[in-house]
């Protein structure tokens, strides 16, 4: 038998991550570009806050509620701190905490959710019921209780919000994971003798990314709200650290005088939220169908 001839010759498409990313970017719609640029801008501001901000984060000037001027571009707040400076440092704190929290909640929620989907049985029962218990307590009240026990340092804030958020992520990951866990390629991996780490990370996770990424965009925005709510109740980010949520609240009275300054941090949150979701939408569109088959 000499039929060792390959059945067809096709050009080999060596696709490294970098080239794939490049072609994807080239095809990205305007909204995605807008979102990416805004996020990039936020990140630069957050990272280089120390050099960009005109004053120190907690530097207090004599005039409280000062109007916009040469010296204070966006005026000062209720204690006489420069609004622009606070806004810039707020980016660092708020985004930093929100990113860390969301990432942590996804790391916990997704890995446990996919394990539950893969093994089902008693592991699934224990995890799912534990999540049910956590979800049955209103999360804000639960967070309040935990924060008053552990103290409201930034670390405990991140861990507690992440833990409470991960219950929702767990549910989603388990639900989408169940659909993939019954696929034959997962069975193939089990028959090969692969351990749970490989099966979850290499076989299931890549196939459940689209819904998880969509959820990531949404959760990221909700974390802002939770932090703002906790700050409002006095257990969130502690003064004098700047964060956008509490800045809105502290200067809310100015709105009654027709001053838009307190809306700026709110606007900053809104712009970031919209941008993150633009990018998420684009990502979803690019990955949900393996190829465009509309």
């Amino acid at each position, binding site marked *: *038998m000499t039929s060792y001839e390959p059945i067809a010759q096709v050009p080999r498409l060596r696709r490294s991550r970098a080239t794939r990313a490049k072609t994807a970017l080239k095809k990205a719609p305007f909204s995605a570009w807008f979102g990416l640029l805004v996020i990039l801008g936020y990140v630069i501001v957050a990272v280089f806050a120390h050099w960009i901000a005109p004053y120190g984060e907690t530097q207090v000037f004599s005039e409280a509620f000062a109007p916009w001027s040469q010296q204070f571009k966006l005026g000062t707040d209720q204690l006489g701190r420069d609004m622009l400076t606070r806004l810039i440092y707020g980016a660092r704190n708020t985004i930093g905490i929100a990113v860390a929290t969301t990432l942590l909640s996804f790391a916990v929620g997704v890995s446990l959710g996919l394990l539950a989907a893969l093994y089902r049985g008693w592991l699934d029962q224990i995890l799912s019921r534990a999540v049910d218990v956590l979800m049955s307590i209103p999360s804000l009240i639960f967070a309040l209780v935990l924060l008053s026990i552990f103290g409201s340092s930034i670390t405990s804030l991140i861990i507690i919000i992440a833990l409470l958020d991960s219950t929702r992520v767990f549910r989603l990951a388990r639900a989408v994971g169940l659909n993939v866990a019954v696929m034959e390629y997962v069975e193939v991996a089990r028959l*090969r*003798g692969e351990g749970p780490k490989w099966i979850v990370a290499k076989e299931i996770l890549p*196939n459940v990314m689209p819904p998880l990424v969509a959820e990531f965009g949404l959760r990221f925005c909700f974390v802002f709200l939770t932090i703002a709510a906790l700050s409002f109740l006095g257990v969130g980010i502690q003064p004098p650290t700047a964060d956008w949520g509490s800045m809105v609240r502290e200067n809310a009275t100015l709105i009654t005088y027709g001053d838009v300054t307190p809306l700026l941090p709110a606007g900053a949150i809104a712009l970031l939220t919209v941008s993150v979701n633009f990018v998420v939408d684009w990502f979803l569109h690019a990955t949900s169908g*393996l*190829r465009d088959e509309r």
Partner: protein
Amino acid sequence: MKGSGPASREKGKDLLQIRNLHVEGFSDERWHPIVRGVDLALKRGEVLGLIGESGAGKSTIGLAAMGYAKPGCRITRGSILFDGIDLLALSETGRRRLRGSRIAYVAQSAAASFNPAHRLLDQTVETVVAHGIASREKANRSAVDLYRRLQLPDPETIGFRYPHQVAGGQLQRAMTAMAMACRPDLIVFDEPTTALDVTTQVEVLASIRNIVEEFNTAAIYVTHDLAVVAQMADRIMVLRHGLTVEEAETRQMLASPSQEYTKTLWAVRKLAKPEVPADEYLLTIDNVTAAYARTVKVLQNVSIKVPRGRTVAVVGESGSGKSTLARVVTGLLPPLSGSISFAGQALSKALKTRPKEILRRIQMIYQMPDNALNPRQTVEEVIARPLEFYLGLKGAQRDRRIGELMHMVEMSETYLDRLPAELSGGQKQRVCIARALAADPELIICDEITSALDQIVQEEILKLLMRLQRELGMSYIFITHDIAIVRAIADEIVVMHQGKVVEQGLKSEILTPPHAPYTERLLSSVPEMDPDWLTRLLASRRM
């Protein structure tokens, strides 16, 4: 019904005329031709069989006959005249008015085409009521009548069931009833029996043929199964790459195909290999009983021996326990009782307790390569994993072995960077075979691995497997319901029915009469390339 009095239903008048049809599909950022200038004419009451390998454009032509192109496809040139109406010139609303009432469609998978949330009867009469042809009561009565004509069990009440409550073959007939509800002039059947096993297929074919004859409905029957089309069609059109290869009356086409390509299609079913008796047994399944949820017994006292370097074909209809047998051997379903020994050693029952070395020596290939390949892994990643996992190969050594494996399954190394979605069905199955070979196994379990492929690809895969067996000497357990495949590759045959082994022995013993009653039924249900086969079979069964 409306405008279709007895005169216009007269046989022999032109119903459908397609001229110079061009259809394009959109992929990889550009338009590719799918159908490249096909002419087709259909008279009232005539059944035309469209046949060809996958990608030949047969389904696309079937849909175009309804003036429809799938999303991502467009009809670029040509004319489609249905009963004097130019479908392409008609507005979408006009076309929609025709569809369902005068042209109907029966899809390959009835299970996917029915809405699981509604009862069969409601779905059957939906178009009739929507087109205002009859009142709901009248439509319900005529639907029951159709169920009866299609020989569905309990025609009075079956309509009140939900799609998941009836068997696959019955669902396909209910789908035909739905298409027939408006008494259309033309029905397009798109591989209606491909997903069914042989014994069910015969029943569905018979009832479709009867009802089409009874109502003098014209039909386009799309399939890749020659023997099926021989039973159903008055005329056959062979397609390839979107072009007509040849067209003739069924009998003439079967007797003397004129084109080379048609002859190769005809030759596929003649593949055969001489059996070789066993000299040593690799796997022994002894008195195994297995059940799901401890109560539903799917295997009962099954004993099977698999010789080294040979092929054992396990045949039976769906639900006979064939696939469960595979799950027991691989350890996915630990049996309740009985024992399995592999290469002289007892095989532990559960997958978890089996050492890696044993797992390596037993590999499995699945029916649907789409499900068996991770859509996010490239061909290279898929094949490389067993090499790394079992054999610890790395770097250049690994790459060389990947190259050899691709060579063995006759694929070019240029495919290594592709994702499964960028491969054809046959190529995907080759990748699955390469993945199994990568583990250097002694036993490969093939679970219906060719039933999702068309006949030419099927033959290539079977030839490949036989060649690999000659060269590498592994054993196959080949699970199938297709007797033609059994003839082609088996050394020994195991016939299963309702979880029990009916017969077991060398191919020649099982396939030569006298047969056990169930084997007889199974063998006689396999369509033959003789246009009178179905008629003869039905006559003999009725006696």
